[in-house]
């Protein structure tokens, strides 16, 4: 007789000392794990509910904020926790975000500050409607001895640049000591020189937004009151091309990972992402806001976009999806003027008309504290489960549900009806007109009125290409362009 029975030695399973961990043996045979999927679904459901329970996006405000509405927030691209803010009363401040501490504060201008920027050297640039751009040092040693409570008036000021007109926007080059200002003219400046080094204006209209590409550093984009989006290259020292949209863009942000992509926030409640190589259509439309978008920003990962709206809400989008994944609002927050991702993409900093600078979590249920490996594993497992069952009706409903202010809710309903009626009207028009006379225009092209190249040759080349390519729709667009050829000078 050959015989053997299971005889486990408890020494293998029970720890000798109570400080030791028990030996938790695994057996992955599916027969030992009945109801595998049903249990995972239950876990996913619980995880989704917990996610919503932990969703507390608001962290706090920076210090005491400003005394007037925030007009600009500038990131320091070379430090993770520093930002500069400017307000409508002419005060600029430099902040340590992690300590919520005001590092420097200057009464910079007599008029509202229209833009601030942090130079690669860590100095502060501010520009204003009072026709000046000022360079500030935020190094405390430079102006030590002043009274802390009193706003510093002249200490820290390094240089003043004078212009002929009010400056509406300004941005600094990523690494060179060059900055660009916008207003009645688009001017390129060198911080070493007192006069501007070149004038890149294209057309007579005012320019309200200007933004340097931080990756492809010689390129910048601007948006003006003639609803034009213009791209410039400082290597050729000229604008490249422009598109005219139906509505004005209030903000531009370049994708930090894909240098040719950028997003604009428009007055028509939508944000549009564009590829600078193919400007005849948007690559994506980000909908959901119910008022004009005042600011947009890409996360440093290039995966997410945050928008701040005149409807007093912040929305966060996946850059490839059309609708927001989250909406942030508080009772006291007024119209958003500025939203920015922090440089580690974990936080969002918002400035609004109520003079406060607020800090939010990018992922509302995430917590920053140090996590044990056990907790980390659990959170990772939960994320995987939520992703696996994300299309189950109950989980979908819970994870998508947001409490939205009644004003927004009403506005959404009204907007939905309006859009439907417009669509109906368009369809009716089409039905009652000569077939083919009112062709369908893709949603991503609707907002574009025309496209113009600075260089005549390139324009012609572009036209030729268009004719060879897509046929009637493209030609229609090209036709539109010629209407605006008057802008060429």
């Amino acid at each position: 007789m050959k015989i053997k029975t299971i005889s486990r030695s408890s020494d293998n399973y029970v720890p000798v000392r109570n400080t030791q961990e028990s030996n938790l043996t695994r057996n992955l045979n599916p027969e030992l794990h009945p109801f595998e999927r049903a249990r995972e679904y239950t876990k996913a459901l619980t995880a989704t509910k917990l996610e919503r329970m932990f969703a507390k996006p608001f962290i706090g405000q920076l210090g005491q904020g400003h005394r007037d509405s925030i007009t600009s927030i500038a990131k320091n691209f070379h430090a993770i926790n520093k930002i500069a803010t400017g307000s409508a009363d002419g005060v600029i401040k430099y902040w340590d975000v992690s300590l919520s501490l005001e590092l420097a504060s200057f009464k910079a201008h007599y008029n509202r500050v229209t833009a601030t920027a942090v130079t690669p050297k860590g100095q502060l640039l501010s520009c204003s409607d009072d026709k000046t751009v000022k360079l500030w040092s935020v190094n405390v040693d430079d102006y030590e001895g002043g009274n802390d409570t009193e706003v510093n008036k002249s200490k820290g000021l390094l240089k003043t640049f004078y212009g002929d007109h009010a400056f509406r926007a300004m941005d600094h080059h990523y690494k060179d000591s060059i900055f660009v200002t916008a207003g009645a003219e688009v001017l390129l400046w060198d911080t070493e020189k007192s006069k501007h080094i070149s004038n890149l204006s294209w057309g007579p209209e005012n320019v309200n937004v200007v933004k340097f590409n931080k990756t492809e550093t010689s390129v910048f984009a601007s948006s003006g009151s003639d609803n034009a989006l213009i791209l410039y290259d400082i290597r050729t020292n000229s604008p490249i091309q422009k598109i005219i949209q139906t509505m004005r863009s209030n903000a531009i942000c370049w994708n930090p990972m894909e240098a040719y992509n950028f997003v604009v926030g428009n007055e028509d409640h939508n944000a549009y992402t564009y590829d600078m190589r193919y400007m005849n259509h948007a690559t994506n439309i980000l909908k959901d806001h119910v008022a004009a978008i005042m600011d947009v920003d890409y996360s440093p990962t290039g995966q997410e976009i945050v928008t701040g709206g005149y409807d007093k809400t912040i929305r966060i989008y996946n850059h490839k999806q059309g609708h927001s994944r989250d909406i942030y609002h508080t009772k006291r927050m007024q119209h958003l003027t500025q939203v920015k991702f922090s440089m580690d993409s974990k936080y969002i900093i918002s400035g609004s008309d109520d003079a406060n600078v607020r800090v939010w979590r990018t992922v509302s249920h995430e917590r920053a504290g140090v996590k044990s490996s056990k907790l980390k594993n659990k959170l990772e497992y939960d994320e995987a489960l939520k992703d696996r069952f994300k299309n189950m009706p109950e989980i979908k409903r819970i994870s998508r549900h947001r409490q939205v202010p009644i004003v927004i809710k009403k506005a959404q309903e009204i907007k939905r009806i309006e859009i439907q009626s417009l669509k109906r009207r368009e369809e009716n028009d089409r039905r009652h007109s000569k077939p083919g006379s009112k062709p369908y225009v893709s949603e991503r092209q609707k907002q574009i009125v025309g496209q113009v190249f600075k260089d005549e040759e390139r324009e012609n080349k572009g036209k030729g290409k268009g004719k060879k390519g897509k046929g009637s729709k493209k030609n229609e667009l090209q036709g539109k362009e010629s209407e605006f050829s008057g802008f060429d000078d």
Partner: protein
Amino acid sequence: MGKFTGKNGTQERANASKYERSKGQFKSNRGASGKLKHGLKKIDNQYKEAIHSAAATEMLLQEDAGFLEAEGMEKTYKFKQDEIKAAVDQTTSNKAFDLKLPEFGPYTLDYSRNGTHLLIGGMKGHIASMDWRKGELRAELHLGETVNAVKYLQNEQFFAVAQKKYTFIYDHEGTEVHRMKQHVEVKNMEFFPYHYLLATSGNTGYLKYQDVSTGTLVNEIKTKLGPTQSMTQNPWNAIIHLGSSTGVVSLWSPASNEALVKIQSCRGPVKAVACDRSGNYMAVAGADKTLKIWDIRNYKELFSYTTPTPASDLTISDNGLMSVSWGPHVTVWKDAFKTKQQSPYMNHLIPGSRIQKIRYVPFEDFLGVGHSTGVSNLIIPGSGEANFDALEVNPYETAKMRQDSEVRTLLQKLPADTISLDPNYIGTVDKNAGQARLSAKELAELKAKQQNNEKEAEIRPNVKGKNSALRKYLRKKTQNVIDQRKMRLEANLKKEKELRQQKAKRDRGEPEEKELLGPALARFK
């Protein structure tokens, strides 16, 4: 399967099929677009990778399953328990106990989920809960009342006892915690650890589900099959199998008030039902001395055996050994679901006794036998699962681990109404719900068609109803109540019928019976 590189090596795993969850479900659609196709391919590869790495973990398993093999002329079923006891190691032989309790038998028994604790219940009211490996008694009760069934709940901390009338829940010290007065005259109990449900059935013919975590009665189902003779649960999908006195095995879920499936397995009462761990096979023993093996994936009978006398109980171990008790005997069958076996794997006789209940010990090579003179533990090599999963059920858990796992399982409690024949239906697309995926146009067509059908159905031939006031009255009256009026009415009806028939015959021109017999004899008709 594709070739894999990386941390799991490039070796193909022979045992990989064991870890397959859904065969053929991830075949990429031919008509799918590039993006979808790519996504499906990615999922498919992830799935294959998961199977491969799961199969690779098998070499880490610490324990080997037991076995009993005969050499030369020996036969495994000839080995006596004494011989086996002498041949095995000391710890195993120590565990093979024999409790002599002649006073309060016959005994029924149950093991806790992790196999550490044994609960015995004597018909005459003796209850004992013990850690049988250490030989420590946890609770002992003398109820002075009939005990029909005993069952541990989620762990050894609580157990349910079906007594003469009501069912009670006791805690680990034997304190009565609940009296469940809705569960009356219960003969069989089953507990679903993942749903926290206690299912009871018995003489009343009702199947009742009690949620033991909230204390609510989830569902009570009138089986309409008479007193329930035997009950078991399918551990794979939490379906209850009930054996009736007419030989029908019916499958029940708390989500439905009708039986999901009914199988006529034998003539006469079903004495015992058992399901295996994978939920693929069912064994049914009848009072007509048959023992049938069913494949419950397609409800086909696989093999049929006969027992010398009607079997009293039936159980299947984790490794697929099937035990049958009949009279004082226990017979163990190996590979009973694969081929028709000619001889049993093991035999045991408890002389002068009648076996009431047999249950395998989880994660051990033992079979607990409750009989009229006590409780015995028999060594059955190769019956138990050697390698437990400590995150699922842990025989070596500490009190702290037990408490944690209780909280965890309560958080993951599955809703009772999700119990269905396919445990993985959640998260799958219902391909049968044709309506759900019809386009608006198709739906409109379908609706129009239905309306047409209704219109057509409205035109009916003018058939006179066969109802009458008399018939209605008789129907309303209970069938077996016989009173003066009913008899009179029945006679009237009969007369009416005869008259009708006679009229019909006259119409056809056939001679009447009365005329055939003549006036003198027609009187006696």
